[in-house]
């Protein structure tokens, strides 16, 4: 699908299992979220990333805890992959005081700096310029930290993308621009909004390496993410990764999907990377059926516990409207 790296890195068995674990954690969490919404227990807009698990799962397997991500409204998978704890995550999407953001941010602005989830934005394109700032700070710190900027294919058409990639390249920032190309921007098909057949080609305009990657294949993802992260840590600058994928549940929960054909959707779902990778782990002897069942059960328990935790958490006090506007509380 792309220019083969000469010495492409490949995930060892342990890493494969780690990637799988993150994928399952994303998928089980997403499934539970949609269930809770259907039951009316969550009232926020929800942008499922079901189908896109491989991308952040693989990248996160390559990151350290102190590496940072900036993500978007469709980004809970990115957070879960980055090992954000599920309890405060659930409390947040339920608008409770024990949420990471005390219920003030909600699912579109969930952050958790402790695990490196720095910014979650609802404005298309805006994750990228901010990611540059974290990367600049790493340069100044002399650390080896890298920052990931996640965004969608549609976001590659907005000004912020351009400004951010240019600046990152001129300043050789340790940042990786990860486009999760799910072929649609809301209801707009890729080619109806985007003037180039592969977003990775835009990297040429920034003197930056750019690759189109099979975002549903943990091996292709691993090889490219590994190279990009190594390059960033070595001080050689940014990389643009365009990761091809698909979102199974449309743009937003409740989306009618009639801007896509049934065939393409069915085909994408039939190629679901999760069961495929699961089977591969078993076939290649990386894990047994039992191990994976246990792993899934453990995650299900973690998700159930988090839902319980969130449900039992209180709504925030209205005094919160006067807090966190500035460091100093605004007087009543």
């Amino acid at each position, binding site marked *: 699908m792309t220019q083969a790296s000469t010495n492409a890195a490949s995930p060892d068995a342990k890493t494969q299992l780690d990637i799988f674990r993150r994928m399952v954690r994303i998928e089980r969490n997403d499934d539970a979220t949609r269930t809770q919404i259907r039951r009316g227990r969550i009232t926020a807009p929800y942008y499922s990333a079901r189908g896109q698990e491989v991308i952040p799962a693989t990248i996160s397997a390559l990151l350290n805890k102190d590496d940072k991500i900036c993500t978007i409204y469709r980004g809970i998978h990115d957070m879960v992959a980055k090992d954000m704890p599920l309890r405060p995550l659930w409390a947040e999407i339920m608008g409770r005081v024990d949420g990471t953001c005390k219920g003030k941010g909600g699912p579109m602005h969930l952050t958790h700096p402790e695990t490196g989830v720095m910014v979650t934005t*609802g404005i298309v394109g805006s994750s990228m310029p901010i990611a540059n700032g974290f990367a600049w700070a790493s340069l100044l710190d002399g650390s080896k930290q890298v920052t990931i900027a996640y965004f969608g294919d549609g976001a590659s058409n907005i000004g912020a993308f351009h400004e951010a990639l240019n600046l990152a390249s001129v300043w050789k920032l340790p940042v990786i621009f990860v486009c999760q190309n799910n072929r649609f921007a809301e209801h*707009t098909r890729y080619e109806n909004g985007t003037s180039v057949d592969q977003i990775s080609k835009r990297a040429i305009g920034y003197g930056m390496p750019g690759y189109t990657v099979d975002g549903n294949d943990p091996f292709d993802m691993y090889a490219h993410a590994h190279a990009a992260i190594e390059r960033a840590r070595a001080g050689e600058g940014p990389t643009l990764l365009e990761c091809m994928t698909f979102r199974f549940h449309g743009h937003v929960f409740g989306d009618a999907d009639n801007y896509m054909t049934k065939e393409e959707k069915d085909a994408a779902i039939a190629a679901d990377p999760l069961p495929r990778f699961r089977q591969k782990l078993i076939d290649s002897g990386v894990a047994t059926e039992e191990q994976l069942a246990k792993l899934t059960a453990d995650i299900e328990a973690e998700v159930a516990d988090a839902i319980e935790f969130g449900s039992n958490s209180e709504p925030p006090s209205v005094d919160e409207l006067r807090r966190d506007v500035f460091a100093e509380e605004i007087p009543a």
Partner: protein
Amino acid sequence: MSTDTPTLETGEKVKMTGQAAVSAALFEAMEKDPKVLVFGEDVADREGGGVMGTTRGLSSKFGDLRVRSTPIAEQSIIGAAIGAAMAGYKPVAEIMLMNFTTVAMDMIVNHAAKLRFMSGGQSQVPLVIRTLTGAGFQTAGQHADHLEAWFCHTAGIKVVAPSNPTDYKGLMLSAIQDPDPVIFIETGKTLFAPGEVDPNQGAIPLGKAAVAMPGTDVTLISYSSMMFACYQAAAELAEAGISAEIVDLRTVSPWDKETVLASVEKTGRAIVVHEAVRSFGPGAEIAATIQEELFGKLKAPVKRLGAPYCAVPFAKVLEDAFLVQPADVVATAKAICGK
């Protein structure tokens, strides 16, 4: 959603939402004037006729060149609207949500609003920017801001904010015909609330407020979603023996001073109510003007109700506290009426 204008006897009203009214206005305007264009993200039928469906049917009827879905690129959306408007078209451009005007402020403020003036009248920019906003749907900090104060403070662009289906239709027709740029604010609450509309509803002039409910003791000055809070408050106030007059500004800039001042001169008391943040909000201009023009004639200070000084919060309980509630209007009115 049906997009055809219903055919009925004159005078007989039809029930429709604000959304249907906007849609009807767009159909009528495009039908009548081939220079009217509609574009923005997902507005064409291939993309479902708008994320909310407001533009559904337009591209099928008027073609893919006049009704065009765009990339996610608000600067280029407004830029294209400006150029087309200067070239003689009447574009109705959509910025999906008002918070996304932030990425197009240069185009709106430095160009659309100023080109007639900077060119000494050689150019005109008759465009309409449709945009949706409003809290109450738990969309949190980046999807619900009321930023109209910014545009009110920008010379050369008109700010329209309807509160009911009739005004949605009539003001949209005027906005499209207007020779100058207009920002047309839709809100989730007002867009989907049904109302009775004259099927032949024509243009309603910009810059004219409506006395939505007559009264004698206090004037509630509002627009857009907060009109609901004012109606409810007025009903409660009536029970408490306070007669509230409600003025719906409809156009926030330039606003209708005559109507507002006449009402407040009569009642002697005024409360400006809006969803926007209170500090440095649109209500400040109105309050400052009233106290200046009616100095010595007021029975109480002009009050302002708006959102507290913070971002729109996510949790329902916070969002409710963030929004002005009818009870806040009632309490304020009682206080200044000495009850």
